[in-house]
């Protein structure tokens, strides 16, 4: 583990927007240490022994929930999963009451996934437990951006100065927002690309370049991060059809051939093969989609460890 004098002070991880570049780097460095733990024969450390973590998922998720769950298990925390359909939320209980109940059960960490932007912030004002945002509406998905950055840094050695293109449904994407904040804080040049309805110019105010020209978007990119079209968040007026989207903005073989020879292909998943990404491109040697998943575990271990004030590894 790289030794830094940096002292982590946050109990919550609500988003990337509030983090400093130093804090981001500290999480990535901590994650590097935990990645080594995952490669050992015995993958478990006692850092969060005796702590109780609740995965409060008020929106369907498999991979993020599993990743947090496994991260908590490897840190020796006790973990309970609550999903929307299983909880009393469907019976009309407010999020505040749910949170107070979890507090009454002495939860130490609450990992929340919620369809409403700001739900983790709301929760953090109500309960004493650490709140980790696992995705809130179209707002932020901080651990996804951290694992993306971890992967880029591991492959490219650095983030500063890289050209990163994020392609697809930016308007409704929390992954895009967290990535924009993180990458710009660490000095990357971020280009957003996709249909004008899903990539409005107002995103330039977040410090990005916006383009609707695929060739321009991919030509100089060192990293291409493809986002899934979010059917569930979209109004029907945003673009004509999935077919037209694929024709105009899908990363097919011809377009892939015109990318830089060392450009990384990333995707937060779940991927729609043949829609935003050609099936063979998704499986090619420059695709790091599965490494992102592996790194996600290390990043989430680091985040849980830091926010819960765990014992040193």
């Amino acid at each position, binding site marked *: 583990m790289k030794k830094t004098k940096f002292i982590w002070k946050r109990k919550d991880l609500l988003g990337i927007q509030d983090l400093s570049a130093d804090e981001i780097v500290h999480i990535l460095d901590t994650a590097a240490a935990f990645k080594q733990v995952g490669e050992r024969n015995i993958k478990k450390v006692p850092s969060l022994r005796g702590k109780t973590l609740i995965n409060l998922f008020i929106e369907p998720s498999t991979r993020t929930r599993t990743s947090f769950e496994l991260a908590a298990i490897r840190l020796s925390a006790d973990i309970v999963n609550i999903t929307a359909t299983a909880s009393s939320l469907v019976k009309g209980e407010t999020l505040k009451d749910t949170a107070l109940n979890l507090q009454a059960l002495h939860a130490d960490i609450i990992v929340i996934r919620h369809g409403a932007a*700001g739900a983790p912030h709301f929760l953090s004002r109500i309960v004493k437990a650490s709140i980790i945002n696992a995705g809130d509406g*179209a707002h932020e998905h901080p651990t996804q951006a951290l694992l993306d950055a971890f992967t880029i840094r591991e492959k490219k050695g650095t983030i500063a100065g890289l050209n990163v293109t994020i392609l697809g449904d930016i308007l409704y994407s929390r992954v895009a927002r967290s990535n924009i904040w993180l990458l710009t804080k660490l000095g990357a040049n971020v280009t957003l690309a996709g249909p004008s309805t899903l990539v409005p110019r107002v995103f330039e105010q977040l410090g990005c370049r916006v383009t609707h020209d695929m060739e321009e978007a991919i030509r100089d990119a060192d990293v291409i991060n493809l986002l899934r079209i979010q059917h569930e968040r979209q109004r029907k007026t945003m673009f004509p059809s999935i077919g037209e989207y694929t024709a105009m903005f899908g990363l097919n073989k011809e377009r892939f051939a015109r990318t830089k020879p060392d450009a990384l292909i990333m995707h937060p998943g779940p991927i729609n093969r043949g829609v935003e990404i050609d099936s063979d491109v998704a499986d090619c040697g420059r695709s790091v989609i599965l490494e992102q998943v592996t790194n996600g575990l290390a990043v989430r271990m680091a985040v849980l460890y830091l926010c819960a004030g765990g014992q040193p590894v």
Partner: protein
Amino acid sequence: MKPLLIQHGRVLDPANNGDEVRDLLIADGKIATGPAPGDADVLDAKGKHVVPGLIDLHVHLREPGRADKESITSGTLCAARGGFTSVVCMPNTSPPADNAGTIAYIKQRAAETGCVNVFPAGAITKELKGEELAPIGSLKRAGVVAITDDGNCVQNNDLMRRAVEYAKMFDLPVMDHCQDYHLAAEGMMNEGYWSVALGLRGWPAAAEDIIVARNILIAEMADWWVHCQHLSSARSVALVREAKKRGVKITAEACPHHFTLTEESCKTYDANFKMNPPLRTERDRAALLEGLADGTIDCIASDHAPHCNYEKEVEFDVAPFGIIGLETELALSLALVHKKVLTLRQLIEKFTVNPAKLLRLNKGTLSAGADADVTVIDLDREWTYDVTQSPSKSRNSPFHGWELKGKPVATIVAGKIVWQL
């Protein structure tokens, strides 16, 4: 009731061009002249301003139907504390005020339990659904002072045209909450940098502007009065300004929250900053101030919209729109006088003669013989708003804890002091 003599106040009465330190006599519920009778009660207003009773033409009293949020009793107590002697209550009650019976009920409850004058507005359309006209003639007979589907907006332009044409026959102004449903969609806050940064659905200013433009064209076509409620956008102000120059029968109001706050307030996801129309940009806020100063915006209104704590203490997306505002309205508006955006006379006009004229109320003046509705204001009194002490049944104010300057010290309705500091 004994006569009341308000002594030594600076009596500001825009309707009569009056502005002088003098005594004001009230007898038999009316403004009186001549020497004060020996048995008159005395209210010392030295160093204070004495103005016609303030009128708020846009409040939600939630009765009938949602007395857990507010009632005519609690809502009018807020009005009295805020210096308002008359309020116009919106028809989005349960059942909605789209029929003479509900209007009669509201008027009866107001007479029995309200401490200030309550003037009901009726619905434009049945159940405020925007599909069929409400019985506007019967509503007028039952005593409404205007019609509006407030909270909703009539989307069908032909239906809106007919409503305005029909209301003209009864001398009823038509008030409109300007919101194009498709453009605003499920918008939670102003569309722009902050909605993008916060990941909240945007409610673009154009969704208001397009309906303001529609209302101007319909007012022109029908040659009748349409009042645009709670303007929030710069373009809407410009549209109304231009239409007024052409002599179109159009009026407008603005709310203190829109000319005091901006969209950036939403960044904590506190639902007390969630309102409809939403808080907008600094540019919009500046345009509202200009519109108030040059007379484009005729009235100031609170859009007092009480909601229970448990309804507001939720995710931003889930919370209902609106805030309570009657108690903070005058002080937030007086801030414009202290900052020299408006003269005091201009401000008082927007709370008195202008709404009275718009609604054809025999109010808003201190002429001899007029109803003795009077507000006494201490312009310089500094105070802190504590929403926990509000007579409202709700607590949804973004101004809790704000340090304010200027406060009503007495509110007099028909010669009776209904609230005094």
